[in-house]
């Protein structure tokens, strides 16, 4: 199919989609008039039931916790999938670090980037850790904190070399952390079952001050494990993608 034909078919389809969509909008409650009951019921009861002030985290890690187990394992499977797709195939060999174009000027990493990356690494770790441990208080949680923790390792890569990144996050250790994070979440759920409660039922003391770090029982603990899992999964995925620059096909194009 030629690109022009392709574009025309798309435009006809998009016009149909837009027409049906706009037709469907008429009769819906407009923006800002949401009538759905569930969210508002949860808003009313969540703080009293769980002692957590961040209702979104309460839904993610408690009311809808079982879904979030699946969500966490999606990321786990993605990290495993990337490692599988990018495994060393037959005929691939690792490129030596010998400079193959010695006559060309390769700009070295500027000291400004090195300095800024090094300066930011510490604060980024603290911020990621803070986010991962405050799911019960404010708009944070394991997913957000985990991604930011992984960013700290990318800053190490920016400030040095890929090999330095490998030294700071050895694959075996990162995989163990990922497994502990993913398994910890599931294990909390199973411990509730072992006590005769429903899966993922909050069984820890809820604390006294709503939204404090010590409040909300398992919500804070689950968020911490999710943070570990997400950070490790992202470090693994980024590492796998960067490692591809070291691999070439034999007789490569």
């Amino acid at each position: 199919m030629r690109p022009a034909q392709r574009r025309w078919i798309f435009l006809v389809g998009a016009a149909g989609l837009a027409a049906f969509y706009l037709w469907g909008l008429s009769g819906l409650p407009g923006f800002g008039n949401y009538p759905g009951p569930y969210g508002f019921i949860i808003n009313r009861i969540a703080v009293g039931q769980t002692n957590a002030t961040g209702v979104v985290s309460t839904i993610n890690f408690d009311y809808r916790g079982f879904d979030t187990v699946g969500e966490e394992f999606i990321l786990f499977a993605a990290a495993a999938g990337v490692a599988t797709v990018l495994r060393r195939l037959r005929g691939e060999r690792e490129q030596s670090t010998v400079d193959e174009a010695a006559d060309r000027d390769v700009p070295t990493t500027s000291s400004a980037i090195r300095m800024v990356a090094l300066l930011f690494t510490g604060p980024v770790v603290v911020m990621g850790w803070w986010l991962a441990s405050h799911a019960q208080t404010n708009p944070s949680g394991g997913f957000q904190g985990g991604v930011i923790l992984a960013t700290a390792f990318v800053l190490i890569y920016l400030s040095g070399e890929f090999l330095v990144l490998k030294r700071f996050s050895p694959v075996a250790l990162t995989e163990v952390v990922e497994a502990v994070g993913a398994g910890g979440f599931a294990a909390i759920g199973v411990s509730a079952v072992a006590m005769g409660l429903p899966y993922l039922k909050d069984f820890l003391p809820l604390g006294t001050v709503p939204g404090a770090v010590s409040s909300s029982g398992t919500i804070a603990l689950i968020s911490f494990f999710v943070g570990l899992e997400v950070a490790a999964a992202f470090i693994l995925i980024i590492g796998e993608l960067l490692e591809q620059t070291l691999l070439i096909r034999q007789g490569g194009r």
Partner: protein
Amino acid sequence: MQYFPFVVVVWILCVGLYGVVTSRHLVHQIICLIVVQSSTYVLLLGVGYLTGAVAPYFYDVPVHTPAVDPVVQALALTDVVVEAAVTALLLSFAIQAHKRFGTLDPQELASLKG
């Protein structure tokens, strides 16, 4: 005007789809798919919005303050996680396609027998 955010949703969706359809580079195509998915964030957050309500966090406001729907916000979080997973996998497929066929143009790839 009361449907404006929902019109923005379908606009983002169509712009992204147009990019997917006409793309000449796999990485560009993957980014267009991310644009398509971004329309769902706007949809989810737009659906749950309540005029004059606060965010569903009751750390510094009283518990009975009207707040927007937290369920769709939790769904948006799931959406982001799925997008990250899908993007990572697609990018690694793009790397393998380039290794195997030496091209990242989807229209050339389609005409190859693999």
